[in-house]
Each structure stands twice: as structure tokens, then as C-alpha cells.
């Protein structure tokens, strides 16, 4: 399905203990585009996205089978730390480092990556906050605690924190599920901008959101990939009966 993408998933299965959460999934995520993964709760969409930066395997008794090719290299075969520096992630609930300032939250990845001059870090922090559409709101108080921001601002801070590491792929695991409609709208318009620079993969339980932001959409059900294609096709001309039932709200 969908030839050579930036990130190519091949026959991927992921397990929690003996339970298989996703089963033999193959699909490609195209470069500099937004791809959405939709499906009802428990369909494995979060598990799938957590495999793409090898976060799944940090939990106890988990296992992954198959291949995940990033620019043709299987990320399951290389150092996961290097993978995560190329594939950033934003989580369901904003999770800024609670003891750190806004500035320190954004610059933390640069401090991991070793030597950067004060100037370089300053520039990266400003660039990332601008890309996350947060700069204008915080430019006068970057030393304020991260927790002094609102929920929506915190989530954009987490996006800035991920972008500061200059990843190539940005994973977003239901990034708006804890936010109000106004904050959600901001994140959505941000996602549309980010695809000019990054390959964005977003998990959402909200079909309208997938329709608004994604170029391609994958529908997962019970751990299996049911259908994947251009978002418009999937919503307007679904090939599978199951997809049609889901998008018309007959289950899920």
C-alpha cells in the first residue's frame, strides 16, 4: 500500500505480553504531508504510532515484529536513541517538564544532543517557539515556569520542544484530546503549517479532525489496517464496508 514513503511500515505486529495489539500492518507515510490514523478506542492506533519512535518497547513485556523503514533504513535495527532524535513525538496530554521554565523545556533536547553554543540554543528556542505558534504569547516571559501556561499553550510548548531537536518526522498521539475547541483549532492550523517542513503522523479518534488536517488517512480496526488512502477518498468513497460504517457513525 502506498509505495515508498518517508516512513515505510512493513508487516508490523506489536505485542503486550501475549496480546497482539496490532497485526501485520503495512503502509507508507509520505514525506512532508500529514497522515492521520483513525479508528475506535483500542484499535491499536496509539500502539502503531508508538512503534514508529520505538517507544512501545520501553514498556515491560512488549515486543515488535516486522520492519519500519525510515529513508530505507530499518529503525528496529539501529540505536533507538538515534531514531528518537529523528522522529519526534507529542503526547495525548501536554507533558512539559514540570520543574522547568518555558525556555528550558524547549532547549532540553539541544542539551541532550551535546555541544551547542548559547547563541545556537537561543536561536533554536526562538525558531521552535515560532514554529509552534507560541512565540508571540511567551516572548516576554520565556523564563516563567512551563506550568504557568494554559493547557493549549502547554501542548504547543511540547510541540516546540519536539521541533527543537530538528526531527524529520513528527508523531502526534491524539494531541488535542485534552484541549478545548479553541486550543484544538490552533493546533490543527499549526499541523497544516508543519507539513511544509516535517512529515507529520497524527493519531486521532476525531474523524472531523482527520478530515480537516490530513492528506492521507489510515483506518484501523481491531489491530488491523482496514483502509488507507487520500483522506478525501477514504471519507467520500470508502472501499471497505467497515470504513463506511465507521465514518458514518454506525459504530465506534
Amino acid at each position, binding site marked *: 500500500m502506498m509505495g515508498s514513503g518517508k516512513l515505510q511500515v512493513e508487516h508490523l505486529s506489536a505485542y503486550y505480553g501475549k496480546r497482539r495489539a496490532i497485526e501485520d500492518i503495512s503502509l507508507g507515510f509520505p514525506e512532508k504531508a500529514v497522515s492521520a490514523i483513525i479508528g475506535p478506542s483500542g484499535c491499536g492506533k496509539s500502539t502503531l504510532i508508538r512503534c514508529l*519512535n520505538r*517507544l512501545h518497547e*520501553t514498556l*515491560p513485556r512488549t515486543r515488535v515484529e516486522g520492519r519500519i523503514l525510515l529513508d530505507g533504513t530499518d529503525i528496529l535495527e539501529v540505536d533507538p*536513541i*538515534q*531514531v*528518537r*532524535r529523528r522522529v*519526534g*513525538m507529542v*503526547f495525548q*496530554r501536554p*507533558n*512539559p*517538564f*514540570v*520543574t*522547568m*521554565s518555558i525556555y528550558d523545556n524547549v532547549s*532540553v*533536547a539541544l542539551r*541532550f*544532543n551535546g555541544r551547542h553554543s548559547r547563541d545556537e540554543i537561543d536561536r533554536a528556542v526562538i525558531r521552535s517557539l515560532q514554529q509552534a505558534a507560541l512565540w508571540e504569547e511567551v516572548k516576554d516571559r520565556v523564563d516563567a*515556569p512551563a*506550568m*504557568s501556561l494554559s493547557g493549549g499553550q502547554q501542548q504547543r510548548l*511540547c510541540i516546540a*520542544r*519536539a521541533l527543537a*531537536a530538528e526531527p524529520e518526522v513528527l508523531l502526534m498521539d491524539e494531541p488535542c484530546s485534552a484541549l478545548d475547541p479553541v486550543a484544538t483549532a490552533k493546533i490543527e492550523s499549526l499541523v497544516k503549517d508543519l507539513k511544509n517542513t516535517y512529515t507529520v503522523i497524527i493519531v486521532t479518534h476525531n474523524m472531523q479532525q482527520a478530515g480537516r488536517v490530513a492528506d492521507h488517512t489510515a483506518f484501523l480496526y481491531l489491530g488491523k489496517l482496514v483502509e488507507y488512502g487520500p483522506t478525501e477518498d477514504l471519507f467520500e468513497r470508502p472501499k471497505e464496508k467497515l470504513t463506511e460504517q465507521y465514518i458514518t457513525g454506525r459504530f465506534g
Partner: protein
Amino acid sequence: MDPSTLSSPLPRPRKGHVWGDRIFGVLVAGAGLFVIFLVFAIASILITQSRLAFDSYGLAFLIGTRWDVSHEVYGAVPFIAGTLLTSAIALAIGFPLAIGSAIFLTTEAPRWLRGPLGSVIELLAAIPSVVYGFWGLYFLGPYMRTTVEPILAKSLGWTGAFSGAATGTDVLTAGIILAIMVIPTIAAISRETLAAVPVAQREAAISLGATNWEVTRTAMVPYARSGIFGATILGLGRALGETMAVTMTIGNHDAIPTSLFSQGQTIASLIANELTNSSGPLQYSAIIYAALILLAISLLVNVAARLLLWRVLRVTGGTTE
């Protein structure tokens, strides 16, 4: 709102309930007041019994450097110094070991090993202090005298901290015994607070490409710092007040330690050694005065810790648990 809905008849409580609640209230209030009474009872005895020494020396007792029973000259500095020095050694050695093991147990150790290893560390807390004293007296002390202290004297003697004869019953040995005794306190509570760091915080760091050390340093320790700090203060409290093990290993000499190899005395060991066979009312009273100072030091440490913690948390907006 329609007032009739407010005055709708509620079932009246049965008489038994009222009495039950009254008895319950009286019982818990009594327990609370009794505990507060105990604090005052102890403090007032210390104050009245130290009166004689206080009248003789006043606050000069706090800066008196001599404790000479035969000339009836009493000053508290040797014991304050001994107490602070041994506690400082205990924290200097015990804190890194305790934090290291707490981090190991929450992040690096294989999962199946975490429970058993944690229990072993907590077992250290269950060993009676007289057993630590015995171990210090018959094993650690001689080993310090024959092996560790000669090496320290040779390599670090020039600093002055390790001068004098190596005896093995000295401030250093007592400090090391205290270090071992504070480890379980600090490690157990630190481990719990580290284990309580939300997965979301850890995953935030992991997803940025952090190494294990970077995850620990950025996501775990800062989040758990107030718990770690509280654990350290509890450990310090144990070190300040520990009596039996110190009495058996410190050498019991009523003078200001001039090196880590000096025999010394802490306030607690002074009380244990000299209270029951004090030579007269003034010495007895001076010892109680020293006990009052120990109480004050402990209180001060606690209050200072709370203030510091409160400031740190207020400045950075961290969590308070």
C-alpha cells in the same frame, strides 16, 4: 428556588448516632491533645532540669569549648561539633549511595529484581542500632584502624583532615556507621517518589532521544526532588539523634575533634555516657542543657528544610507532594 424544597423533612438522626459521634469526637480530640501534651511535657522537663546550668553559663554554654568535669567547666561546643561532623559524614557518604541505589532500583535494575532488592535495602532499617554499634566496634573499627585509615593518612594526610593516630574508634568510623544507618531511610523514600514520577514525564524525555542518564536527570530526579529532599532530612534527623551505635564507635572523648581520626562525642552519646553517672547536679544539668540544644538543632533543621523546600517549589512552580 422554591423554599419548600429546602425545608423538606430530613430523617432525624437516631440518638445512638449522635452519641457515637460524640464519643468518637472526644476520643480523637483526646488522642491529639495528649500527643501535644507529650511534646510540652518533654520540653518542660528539659527546660527545668537544665535551669541550673543555664543560670551558671547562660548562652555562653553554646560557645564553651571545654568540658572539664574535674574543674566543673562545661561548654557544649565539643558535642555540637561532634554531632554536626558525624552527621555531615553520614550524609556525605550515605546520600549518594542511597540516591544511587534508589535510581538503580527504579530505572536500571531488571524488573524481577526490583522488589527483592528494595526489601533488602529496607532490611537495613530493621537492624537494631546496638547491632550496628557492635558491628562497628568489632569489625569496622579494627578494619578502619589497620587498613582504611593508614591509606587515608598516607594519601590525604596533607589536608589535615586525616591527621593523628589511626585508632578505628573515632569520628570517621561513627560517621560511616551513621551513613549506613541513614541509607535505608533516604533510599526507601526516594525510591517511592522516583517510582511515582508519571510515565508521561519519563516518556517526554525518552521521546526526545534521551539516554537513561538523561531521562533520570531531566525527568525523574527534578520531579521527585521534594520527596528526595524530605527523605534526606529524615535521614539527617536519624543521624543527629542516633545514640547507641555512635556511643560504641566514636571513642567518647569530651573534646572538639581536630581531625576525622579524633575521638569525639555527640550530644546523644554524651547523654548516654555521662547522664547516669554524673558527678554532681551541675554536670547533670549541663548534660540536660546539651539535650535541649539537640532538640533545638533537630527543630531548626526541620524548619529550615521546610522553608527551603517551600521557596524552591514556589520559585519554579514544582509539585508539592
